[in-house]
């Protein structure tokens, strides 16, 4: 059972410099759903994630993105965050000199201010942070360290999930959150994502590998190639990809493959 349409992407095209990366991408995500975006390197997965979060480096040249009934592309990144969009970075940024919890509290209170909610004081924030750190099994010592500075790859990813758990987004876009994780970290990160799942929220998992989907069961799986979604299916599609790889996707033109709206019977256009 799925809820209202939360994210609707139509004919999205975008480029980096002179290079066209997204070449007409369509995707519909409803509240309550987890979608996995898979595909070979260079297919445009991370560009899609960056465009949705509002990264300047990507220039949108056409198409539309509606989020919760609004034109998402018209908003600066912080306004998207205030409306519940969260991007988990493939390469979380190190910010020496800025305390992890200090930063997170600044961010949370910025979101709360933008939503007209009261700011959280230091004590209330600390107890919230402690609870969420427990969820992602992050050592409390990481709270006072500088944001991501000197963190291992796995610790950085846990920290992203920790931030997500505190900020409680409605649409979480996780860009290769599984890359570089050992099995233990993968379990913890998955636990954090599963804990976020709720009927009014959605998750977009960008991943190269199917193993993440052993821990987080998606409602839909999409394969990207050359800037478009070339195939969509249920969770079994991920298993199939594990056998076949992505070579077929790179070789075949996207046209002629089953377009996403035909799958699942739940993507009728309005």
């Amino acid at each position, binding site marked *: 059972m799925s809820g209202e349409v939360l994210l609707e992407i139509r004919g999205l095209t975008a480029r980096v410099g002179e290079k066209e990366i997204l070449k007409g991408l369509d995707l519909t995500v409803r509240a309550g759903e987890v979608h996995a975006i898979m595909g070979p390197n260079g297919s445009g997965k991370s560009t899609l994630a960056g465009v949705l*979060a*509002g*990264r*300047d*480096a990507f220039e949108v040249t056409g198409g539309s993105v509606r989020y919760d009934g609004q034109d998402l592309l018209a908003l*600066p*990144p*912080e306004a*998207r*965050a*205030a409306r519940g969009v*969260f*991007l988990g*970075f493939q390469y*979380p*940024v190190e*910010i*020496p*000199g*800025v*305390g992890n919890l*200090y*930063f*997170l*509290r*600044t*961010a*949370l*209170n*910025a*979101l709360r201010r*933008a939503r007209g909610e009261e700011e959280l004081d230091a004590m209330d924030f600390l107890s919230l942070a402690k609870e969420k750190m427990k969820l992602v099994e992050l050592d409390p010592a990481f709270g006072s360290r*500088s944001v991501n500075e000197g963190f291992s790859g796995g610790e950085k990813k846990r920290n992203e999930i920790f*931030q997500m758990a505190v*900020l409680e987004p409605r649409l979480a876009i996780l860009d290769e959150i599984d890359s570089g994780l050992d099995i233990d970290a993968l379990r913890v990160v998955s636990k954090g994502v599963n804990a976020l799942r709720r009927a009014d929220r959605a998750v977009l998992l960008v991943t190269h590998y199917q193993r993440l989907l052993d821990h987080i069961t998606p409602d839909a799986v999409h394969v990207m190639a050359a800037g478009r979604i070339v195939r969509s299916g249920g969770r079994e599609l991920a298993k199939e990809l594990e056998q076949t790889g992505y070579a077929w996707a790179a070789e075949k033109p996207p046209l002629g493959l089953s377009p996403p709206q035909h799958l699942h019977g739940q993507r009728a256009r309005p």
Partner: protein
Amino acid sequence: MSPTSVTPASESLAAAFAPPHGEPGWLAEARLAALGSFQAAGLPTTRLEDWRTTSLAPLSALTLFRPRPDAEGPDLKALLERAGRLDGPRLVFVNGRYRPDLTRLTGLPAGATLLALGDAIREVPDRVRPHLFRLAHPEAGALTAASAALFEDGAFLHLPGGAAVAPPIRIIHVGGAPGGVAAAFPRLLVVAGEGALCTVLEHYLGMDDQAYLVAPVAELVLGAGARVDHYRFQEDGAAAFHLASVHVEQAAGSHFLSHALSLGARLSRSEVHARMNGEDGECRLSGLSLADGHRLSGHLSVVEHAAPRCTTQETFKAILDGHARAVFSGRIRVLPGAQKTQAYQSSSNLLLSDDATVNTSPQLEIFADDVKCGHGGTVGRLDETSLFYLRSRGLDEAAARSLLIYAFAAELVEAVRPEPLRARARALVAARLPGGVRLLEAA
């Protein structure tokens, strides 16, 4: 020899030569000789290698005067409030003149001497005379000459062997006088005996709407195993000229820390000259420059390794906006025989505008063959990926920028070791950054 250019500034300074009555003969003679050196040299010009990128032309054109002790001064109450209400010993000087009424010379261990320099010359001349002018020799440059000839007063700290002063000793200098460009030449002389330990903060503040010159000279003599942490918070007024030099001599196993926050003044130049005469010494030099508008802020250092197994660590940063300019010059000389020297210097610069510039020149002169020396430097802008990261979490662009700017400075703010001084440093730096005060509220 090129003819000395007589400028209104140098002429007016020479004319202001008026040594206090009743000084001992050796000092009167030294002052006269120093006046001669200053008149012969004139203010430094960009023809001198060390001043190539720092023009004193705007200062040279001014007529300077030395306010009388009873002259009207800046709003002391407000400025001292800004310096912070901290316990512990404190000396206050206004335009270089000692203010015993605002001074507190308590909290020192037995045997330690903390006095105004003028009083020390009278009361303990045998402790002053061997060291005054020794490291900052009047012949060494025009400004040390001017200081020797013209100094009004200063602070004198003598610690016998093993003496430890726990609370930071604060020396507050207030500058500026209505109706003219005041000049002040305050001095600091610290003699730390074997194994002695102290922290000294010089805090410079002044009028914002009136140009003035403050040209402090500090001499610090560290005995074997002594540890001296010397902080300078320079938040002089926006029209001020601040030309400081610090001269240090380190005996074996001593630790010296010099840390300058150069936040104010139209033109700020901070020189540190250190010489490590004994083995196993440690010299840490750091400084942060914040400048905007057409301001210039420079940090220069010359460290001489004259003995084996000493280490030097230099960390300098600048954050520049508008048409501001930062100068970094770091010379490390490893003399013959100074084996196992370890020396590293870094200069990192953050440019917030297209028109800000940095002149940086690391210089290693090595005359020993078993040493580890290096330098590194960066000049860059705010990182776009970091900005996006912060904005994607909900911070608006201005907040994200100010957080990253503060983060760049944070290493040198947190390098202030005593907690009460560190809290002041945080507030002073944050107050000068866009949206900065809000940064601290959430902390």
